[in-house]
């Protein structure tokens, strides 16, 4: 596989050759910020378009097809439109918290986004406790959601925020436990370590049955964590208008929309990293010719491809299953998913401790 750190170290040495160290670092940090920002916005625009086309396909209609060929400029047009909408502030809101909430939501989602392994040597934040860090910063988004609902001072938003809070904290347990299952088998919390441990086979295949169960639990709990799919209780349109962001308008609402779609991609990216081998190509032990051909496909293509497939599965959920009620939602987590993931973790730890893994 081509190692992308060659490019980054080449840029670093080039800049160091004629600039002092602080200027080099400054330029690099600005470049990283711009790159992440551009990637974030392009992915969000793509995912919004993709979701609308997928929804169209599932409902036997066309979806957006007017702006540009196959409607590919539709989400760009929507972005420009949302920027010129009025920002409405209500009379009785808490202005400070109302303005603060989108910062929390976007910062949490962007920090998690920066931890994803994009390719061989292409990763921004690479802590030794990578997956744990991801779990921690993505939890910050809950604060933003609760603040948004509370600060709006409207009945719909408060109920929506409380429901979203209860749902997101509940499903974070299942996410944590299914991540723990993979940490147990790989013996590493660093994202790079987990991906490199899957060189000879993805964890979905070499983790026996527990990894498969953990993958399914992750998909269900991940969809619930990002308030989507059959679990969009927080913004159940028929009962709560738009849930916690009812009173947000214009670009304020756009931030939540952006974060929702990026969280969808982050969910797919984490599932890819943990279960589907990250940027590792598909290797079948023994088939050397096949493995060599797979190695020619760049690692970025592998990561993006697998993530988009997981995202597509999540969209399939959303347009197939009916919405759950809040009591059914909490029952599903606390009486089914949590006990199942605890037992699953116990089975996995027995397998690992007794050395029955590959």
């Amino acid at each position: 596989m081509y190692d992308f750190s060659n490019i980054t170290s080449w840029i670093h040495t080039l800049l160091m050759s004629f600039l002092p160290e602080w200027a080099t670092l400054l330029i690099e940090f600005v470049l990283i910020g711009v790159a992440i920002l551009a990637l974030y916005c392009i992915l969000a625009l793509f995912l919004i378009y993709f979701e609308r086309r997928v929804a169209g396909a599932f409902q036997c209609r066309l979806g957006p097809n007017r702006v540009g060929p196959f409607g590919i400029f539709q989400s760009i047009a929507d972005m420009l439109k949302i920027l010129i909408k009025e920002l409405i502030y209500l009379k009785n809101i808490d202005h400070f918290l109302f303005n603060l909430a989108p910062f929390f939501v976007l910062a949490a989602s962007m920090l998690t986004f920066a931890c994803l392994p994009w390719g061989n040597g292409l990763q921004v934040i690479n802590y030794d406790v990578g997956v744990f860090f991801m779990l921690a910063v993505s939890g910050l988004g809950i604060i933003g959601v609760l603040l948004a609902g509370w600060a709006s001072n409207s009945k719909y938003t408060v109920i929506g925020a409380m429901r979203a809070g209860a749902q997101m904290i509940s499903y974070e347990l299942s996410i944590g436990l299914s991540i723990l299952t993979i940490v147990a088998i790989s013996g590493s919390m660093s994202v790079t370590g987990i991906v490199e441990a899957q060189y000879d086979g993805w964890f979905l295949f070499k983790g026996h049955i527990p990894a498969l169960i953990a993958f399914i639990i992750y998909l269900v709990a991940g969809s619930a964590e990002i308030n989507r799919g059959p679990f969009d209780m927080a913004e159940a349109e028929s009962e709560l208008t738009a849930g916690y962001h009812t009173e947000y308008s214009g670009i304020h609402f756009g931030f939540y929309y952006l974060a929702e779609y990026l969280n969808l991609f982050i969910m797919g990216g984490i599932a890819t990293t943990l279960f589907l081998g990250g940027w590792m190509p598909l290797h079948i032990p023994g088939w050397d010719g096949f493995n060599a051909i797979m190695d020619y496909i760049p690692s970025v293509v592998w990561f993006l491809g697998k993530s988009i497939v997981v995202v597509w599965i999540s969209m399939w959920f959303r347009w197939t299953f009916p919405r759950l009620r809040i009591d059914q939602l909490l029952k599903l987590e606390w009486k089914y998913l949590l006990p199942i993931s605890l037992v699953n973790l116990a089975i996995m730890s027995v397998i690992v401790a007794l050395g029955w893994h590959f």
Partner: protein
Amino acid sequence: MNSALFVTILVTAIVMVGAALLIAWLLAPRSFNPQKGEAYECGIPTRGTSWMQFKAGYYLFAILYLMFDVETVFLFPWAVILREVGAAGLISIAVFMVILVLGLVYAWKKGALEWK
């Protein structure tokens, strides 16, 4: 290096939200209408404030979440060295897990997991 990158991404997120708000503030129209300041409530004026006492059920789930989340935090370092500690580590963590699962069973029997 990682901490500097962490700060970089955090600043990027804040700059992005700030810049988008600034662009919207420059481009967006502003009009005044007393009706616009009302909270959305299907056409009728809203009664009273929404900052009031709330259903205790959410609080129960938050407490239970706290218990299990702290458990997950304790399990992460154990999971990393699971191969080295082997069966001895497995037994000692099993004791810890049993105590926690007893807590879940107690909450279940008491009806704390029911949504009333």
